[in-house]
């Protein structure tokens, strides 16, 4: 099972009491609380941590993108990919991912991902996401078109990568009469495509049909298994065989020299389970964004929101794994045994988890955990 390092590049640099005054940390929390100096230093710090993860033997570096929120100030996944393409040497760079429905120019996106792939020597794993509702507001993109635009944007990017130009694209949402990108990915026919999932059965089926790597985020094991079943249905429709390499899973994880220290560090993950997800439903799931099936599955997948769970419960149910390296390796083995996935994505830094703690966790993962699970 391959391990991936991930930080949301949080900007938790303000008094929490200030954030609590607003209906949500997303969209509404005024950016006068954005600390430019600390942000500049944090980007350096976070990139150093990614580079260290590359050096200690992580299989991949996962990066993501959000907007208008202190929970994630990585505001351009292709930008970060370009940086890491130069400053790291061996790990895959997993973009998870580009938010397709809010993109107005898929041709430019295809070029940017291709350029990162070229600079990195073909290490890009290109994740595509539908985004949370907040991004629809940020981009002022109509949420009723979210799925249509996701699929059409995907189709056009793929065509840019695989069909010789020049060609014309006259779709429903995208119109380009002269497409001929002079930047194509190093990997052929194109970088592997990854798709995350939390609640949408349609997305799982869609990914399965195409053989993309599918990764549920922070859901209970039985829900992940159910989503994998949808994935298998999609794969079966087109006669594809599903292997462990098609399946991934994302959890929060930290290790330290002692169990107590790790459990202390793990508390930083609670921030991303509650406070950063707080807000009106209309902001996170604007009108028309989710299908009826998606809504029904979401209710089932989250009978209780992560925000309602205590830290101990989050640890007990494996949303957060925190412990000494040996214990962490055992837990990862359990995830592998329960889900049969070939990729484990670790949200490995959050909130105010400091640099020394983060670096030590990366170091111990490399020295003790990665070798222990290499055979899985």
């Amino acid at each position, binding site marked *: 099972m391959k391990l991936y390092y991930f930080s949301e590049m949080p900007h938790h640099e303000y008094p929490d009491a200030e954030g609590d005054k607003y209906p949500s940390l997303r969209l509404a929390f005024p950016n006068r609380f954005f600390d430019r100096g600390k942000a500049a230093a944090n980007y350096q710090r976070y990139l150093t941590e990614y580079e260290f993860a590359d050096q200690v033997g992580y299989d991949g570096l996962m990066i993501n993108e959000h907007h208008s929120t202190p929970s994630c100030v990585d505001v351009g996944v292709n930008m970060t990919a370009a940086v890491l393409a130069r400053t790291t040497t061996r790990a895959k760079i997993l973009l998870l991912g580009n938010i397709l429905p809010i993109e107005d120019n898929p041709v430019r996106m295809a070029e940017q991902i291709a350029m990162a792939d070229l600079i990195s020597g073909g290490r890009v794993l290109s994740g595509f996401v539908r985004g949370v509702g907040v991004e629809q507001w940020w981009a*002022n993109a*109509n949420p*009723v078109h979210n799925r249509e635009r996701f699929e059409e944007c995907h189709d056009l990017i793929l065509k840019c990568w695989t069909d010789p130009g020049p060609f014309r694209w006259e779709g429903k949402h995208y119109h380009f009469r002269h497409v001929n990108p002079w930047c194509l990915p190093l990997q052929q026919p194109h970088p592997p495509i990854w798709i995350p999932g939390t609640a949408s059965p349609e997305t799982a089926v869609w990914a399965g049909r195409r053989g993309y790597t599918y990764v549920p985020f922070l859901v209970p094991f039985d829900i992940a298994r159910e989503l994998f079943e949808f994935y298998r249905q999609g794969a079966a429709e087109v006669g594809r065989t599903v292997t462990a390499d098609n399946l991934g899973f994302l959890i929060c994880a930290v290790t330290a020299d002692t169990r107590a220290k790790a459990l202390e560090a793990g508390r930083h993950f609670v921030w991303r389970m509650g406070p950063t997800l707080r807000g*009106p439903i*209309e902001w996170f799931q*604007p*009108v*028309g964004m989710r299908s009826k099936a998606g809504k029904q599955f979401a209710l089932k997948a989250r009978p209780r929101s992560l925000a309602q769970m205590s830290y101990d419960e989050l640890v007990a149910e494996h949303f957060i794994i925190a412990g000494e390296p040996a214990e962490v390796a055992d837990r990862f083995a359990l995830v592998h045994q329960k889900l049969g996935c070939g990729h484990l994505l670790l949200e490995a830094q959050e909130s105010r988890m400091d640099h020394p703690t983060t670096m030590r966790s990366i170091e111990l993962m490399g020295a003790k955990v990665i070798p222990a699970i290499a055979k899985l």
Partner: protein
Amino acid sequence: MKIREETISVGGLAVHTWIGGQGDPLLVLHGAGGNRGFTRSLTQIAERYTVWAPTHPGFGQSGDAEWMEGVADLARFHLWFIEAAGLRRPHLLGASLGGWTAAEMAAMSPGAIDKLVLVSAAGLKPERGEILDVFFHSPAELRELNVYDKTTIPEWDELFGRAPTPAELEIAERNREMTARLGWKPYMHNPTLERFLPRVTNRALIVWGREDRIVPVVCGEQYRRLLPNATLTVLDTCGHLVAIEQPDTFARIVTEFLA
């Protein structure tokens, strides 16, 4: 009064329509909240006019119209409805989203209608202030924002007094979705509409609540200025849902204007 419901096919799309009253035809276009049918004010107006109140495609019990891209499509559709229903030069009344639609219809085909009534109509970018982002608010918040003082509203309990059934919730969600389809961007207005309104020489009445927190009253002034033959009536202590909030006054001024 005899009120009936009909399904009228327009280009193959089933349009659920409330019909009732006596006299010349009056086409009534509802707002984003959906077709409430014969409310108190409409019932009074129907004593003098035959009211035709179609449910927009994508709303309520009308057929789907995921292909529609904006209010211009909806306006062309309702011009077609006039023909499909066999109405000859009806008066046209529209409120909020329906008011915007009515203004577009008048600008597209002024000869297709007689008099025009715009009530708290979206469609123009306010010179001052903003049209409230209704998608950013919960239905419960919107219910309050839509009116100035709910305690004075005779139909409040009847319309909003009980929790909606699952079927009603589903329709409300559908209405919101279709509204997003029609008015997401540019938000609830058409930047070029003002260029065409001077074409509309039909007699027009514009009605607004002074305390409208959804579409500011300045839009009423803009419509009055742009339409060559229009008067504006602004009601005090009244919010966005004029026909619900002051039904008797509303029915009276509309009936007087159409006479």
